[in-house]
């Protein structure tokens, strides 16, 4: 069946079997920043934004995105012009193997869109669906707090 949507601000359409997962189709179309982890909505490696809200793309069948907007990590920044959240993750040392990072960054982005002044507890709650098996979460939360301050235009001490 044919599915038409918006991906990273551009029109997107493809012919797929109705049971195909969003994560697989995105990756097959070169958007490999979205990672496949558990396949059951546990780890958050595959998180993308569906109409601005984070969802596990391993649990979304492709027809579900018909007429909707999807944002992947490629839609947020580029290697030459990273998003402030991506910059903050690099600067804060919040990345080790990096497999969870795209999902973490997108969940953080959704939070900061809604709440520009989060507490550390707000950040932890917003990232409750994103597992990192390399680090503790301290540096990740540091990074989101740093990004929030920068996006608010505050100078960092």
């Amino acid at each position, binding site marked *: *069946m044919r599915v038409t949507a918006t991906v990273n601000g551009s029109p997107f359409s493809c012919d797929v*079997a*109705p*049971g*195909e*997962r969003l994560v*697989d*189709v995105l990756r*097959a179309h070169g958007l490999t920043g979205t990672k496949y982890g558990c*396949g*059951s*909505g546990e780890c*958050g490696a595959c*998180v993308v934004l*569906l109409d601005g*809200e*984070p*969802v*596990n793309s391993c*649990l*979304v*069948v492709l*027809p*579900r995105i*018909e007429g909707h907007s999807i944002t992947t990590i490629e839609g947020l920044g580029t290697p030459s012009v990273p998003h402030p959240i991506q910059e903050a993750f690099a600067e804060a040392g919040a990345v080790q193997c990096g497999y969870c990072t795209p999902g973490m960054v997108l*969940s953080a982005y959704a939070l900061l869109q809604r709440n520009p002044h989060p507490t550390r507890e707000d950040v932890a*709650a*917003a*990232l*409750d*669906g*994103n597992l990192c098996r390399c680090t503790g979460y301290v540096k990740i939360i540091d990074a989101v707090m740093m990004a929030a301050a920068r996006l608010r235009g505050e100078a960092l001490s």
Partner: protein
Amino acid sequence: MSQILPSLERYHRPASLDEALRILHEGGASVMVLAGGVSLGMVPRRAVRGVVSIERLGLDAVEREGGTLRIGAGVTLGHLERMLAGDSPVERLLMVTVRRTATTPLRNLITAGGVIAGVGPWSDLPVALLALGADIVLNGTTVISIERFLADGPRSIAGAIISEIRMSVDGVKGGAFIKLGRNETDLAMASASVVVFDDGVQPRVRVAIGGLVSRPLRIEAVEESLTRGVIDRGALSELLGSLVTPRHDPRAEAVYRLDLAGTCVMDCFETATREASA
């Protein structure tokens, strides 16, 4: 590419409830209702040839009408969390319960109707809805109590579509939901919800527990004892043990679940009565 449901041939997106019901009727057992899709992976892989999405049925509103709160079956838990005002005991209880359900990305997929249709021992929201005495609306017209639905089981509504969940907010003075798992986002090993009602004549409570058996249960014998103030934590766990035989799994053995459930009920009762008397 792997597929969630390799056998899936047709994805229907009807624009009306009538059309959705017709497709369901014609498709028989090989067609199922699709809400958030989170449990699709648990469907027997060869059984389903078609799904009927509820996305375009207009079941996505949260409305307050008089003394009634109405939640469309297609409302995601994430949306519900953002829509609840938290200015009444009912909305505060639902907010607490939703925030304890799954994770943020999952809550943006899971729907209010889906957690009822796919109810299991781990379900959170149905525990609170049972304590609230909520009703569910089938096919836009048929109203049944969630208590009856949970007693009869999900198979009792095969071929129907849950369109709405509704509950009275009048008379509800306090409510609480507590869930215990291994961590914040774990499935419930035990959970409970207690709601205090007062219609000006006689205060009463409703108690529901989850995590112990296949579906949430209302425990009327406990309601009576709590209202009369004649039961303590130990006696409560003992009483629960005489009423239900909890399941046992590697996360928690039956006797431990009973102990947890007793603790959840007592703590909920204290929180709900505190809110009611504030």
